[in-house]
């Protein structure tokens, strides 16, 4: 038993982080729609879950979880989780997988508990669930209704369509995988918010001292650190559960999404309170991350929905089974 990331897994995450540091600064989050896409394709992010026979890396979700933390940390815009995580499963066996791995097929989805398709206007292909079955929809066959909201860097769209191709895959595995990827992004976003807020608290002075020297600020930030520290293992375990198709997988995915969403929302609320009024403005980049946390926490089922499922899973079954 070895519940720690391997050197390969860490190296891939570091590569993603490096690419994002170079190609996805806050300015790109604010104004770009899909920055760093080709660079991420080059290091294999979009082929990570694509089988090797389709020019992918043939890896598992557990290998994607740290790279996705990095995309969350950078608040990377674009339909990245949908393209890199949902699409390889929904298109399993499809020749389009090669293009997917190469980063030349952008996909947006509306599956599971998702009501809207994120970044659908950028997509080369839409995959939409209807009556429990995934359907591929070409952009020209779709009518998109923009549903503008708090996260301007992750626009949502209502999708109606005329023609669609019924896919032969199941929708549930893709829903689980993309939900875990988004949970990982939430952990990454929470880490960024914690780091940024710690940095601000070290330098901003009030009453003659850095505000980070006040115990109330210290303890709030310590709470965030604890919440993130103990949300992350649930996300990692959920990724393993998806890869191994464990009987507890649905519970584990809900636990990951709920815990990550709540930790990130705590990080967001604390970041705003510690920054004070300045955090509330467009003067800082903070607002980009706050909006992203709110938007991702609600995506693919918010904490309320997943908590209600967890209640049933844990109290409603005759025997609760521990991982593994």
């Amino acid at each position: 038993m070895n519940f720690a990331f391997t050197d390969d897994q860490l190296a891939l995450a570091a590569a993603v982080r490096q690419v994002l540091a170079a190609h996805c600064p806050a300015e790109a989050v604010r104004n770009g729609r899909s920055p760093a896409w080709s660079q991420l394709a080059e290091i294999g992010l979009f082929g990570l879950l694509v089988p090797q026979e389709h020019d992918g890396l043939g890896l598992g979700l557990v290998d994607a979880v740290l790279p996705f933390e990095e995309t969350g940390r950078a608040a990377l815009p674009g339909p990245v989780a949908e393209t890199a995580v949902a699409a390889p499963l929904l298109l399993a066996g499809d020749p389009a997988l090669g293009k997917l791995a190469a980063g030349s097929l952008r996909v947006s989805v509306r599956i599971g508990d998702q009501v809207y398709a994120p970044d659908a206007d950028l997509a080369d292909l839409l995959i939409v669930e209807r009556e429990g079955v995934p359907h591929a929809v070409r952009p020209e066959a779709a009518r998109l209704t923009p549903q503008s909201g708090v996260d301007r860097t992750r626009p949502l769209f209502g999708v109606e369509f005329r023609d669609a191709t019924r896919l032969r895959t199941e929708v549930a595995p893709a829903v689980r995988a993309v939900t875990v990827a988004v949970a990982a992004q939430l952990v990454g976003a929470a880490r960024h918010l914690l780091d940024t807020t710690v940095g601000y608290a070290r330098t901003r002075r009030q009453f003659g001292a850095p505000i980070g020297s006040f115990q109330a600020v210290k303890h709030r930030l310590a709470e965030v650190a604890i919440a993130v520290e103990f949300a992350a293992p649930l996300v990692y375990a959920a990724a393993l559960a998806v890869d191994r198709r464990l009987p507890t997988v649905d519970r584990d995915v809900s636990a990951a999404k709920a815990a990550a969403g709540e930790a990130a929302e705590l990080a967001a609320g604390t970041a705003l309170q510690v920054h004070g009024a300045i955090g509330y403005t467009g003067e800082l980049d903070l607002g980009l991350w706050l909006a992203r946390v709110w938007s991702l926490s609600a995506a693919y089922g918010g904490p309320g929905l997943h908590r209600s499922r967890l209640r049933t899973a844990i109290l409603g079954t005759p025997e609760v089974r521990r991982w593994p």
Partner: protein
Amino acid sequence: MDLDFTRAEQDFRAEVRDWLAGHVPGAPLPSMDTREGFEAHREWEHLLAGERLSVVSWPVEYGGRGASLVEWLIFEEEYWAASAPGRVSQNGIFLLAPTLFSHGTAEQRERFLPGMARADDVWAQAWSEPEAGSDLAALTSRAERVEGGWRLHGQKTWSSRASYADWGFGLFRSDPASARHRGLTYFMFPLAGVTVRPIAQLDGEHGFAELFFDGLFVPDDLVLGAAGEGWRIAMATTSSERGLTLRSPGRFLATADRLVRLARSTGADPVLADQVARAWLDAESYRLHTFGTARRLAAGEEIGSASSMGKVFWSELDVRMHALALRLLGERGLLDGGAPDAEEGGRWLDGYLFSLAGPIYAGTNEIQRNIIAERVLGLPR
């Protein structure tokens, strides 16, 4: 102890309710942080003032009705329950006017209060500075003594309504040798001579602005109270900002009722339903508590530092209620007014973003908790 409203109080409630039912605009006014919306809100204030409903608790001579505190609370309950427009003249009515009543000259009251009641003059507050957020005593903007008055220099920030308002008020350091709380003077000033730069907020609105002063001349009759006494006078004002006047329960009661309706219509999960019920009761408790406070104030008691408890309570309740609404709505809760699917035109999201400022402004809740611990409970500094 009772909770029985008098006949007169009931009649007043009925009058206010009926008038609002007949006059509150059917569609929400445009945002008061746009030029168009600002003027629409000013028009609404004119309408209120015509009925002597803009400042019910003021003396009749200044445009009010001399209403009791309880009647004012009744007015607020009815006002927010009717989903009436936000009060564009709030800064003047709730922050400046109490100070004018207690520290202004008769001439100043005559000159400014009637126009404030009618919103002919809309006022912006100018408390904060970039390096003096929660620490108001760290102000560095200064007032230079000149013949017949003063010249103002420096920068203010988080000035609400300043983009379109007519007048402003705030503290300036009038004694250059002074430090901290000493040597500050309370000024009123026309915004015409001030450079105003709007601050973009999370929601894209511009409710706040930065103000730049470059030697604006202010005659002596715009000084409120004595020169150098600004801190003491301002504290009386911020204490009322933190206390009863700014946050009457009406707004939270209305939000709690809307939240209950939302929870019913969305078929809330029991866990969320529990939180909704708690929030509704918290609003109820805040209302009852305020009734008790109103009685003590009417009897001439001071509420002082105890008002910090109210500030923490209402501001965190407000965040909680709006966050709950967003959670009840799921992905749809995060849509703004531009989205076809937004609930109530994105009002819950707008309210959430607005509520997030509550624990920050008028003394952050960290500072309020220090005040409660030190001044109410008597713990050492």
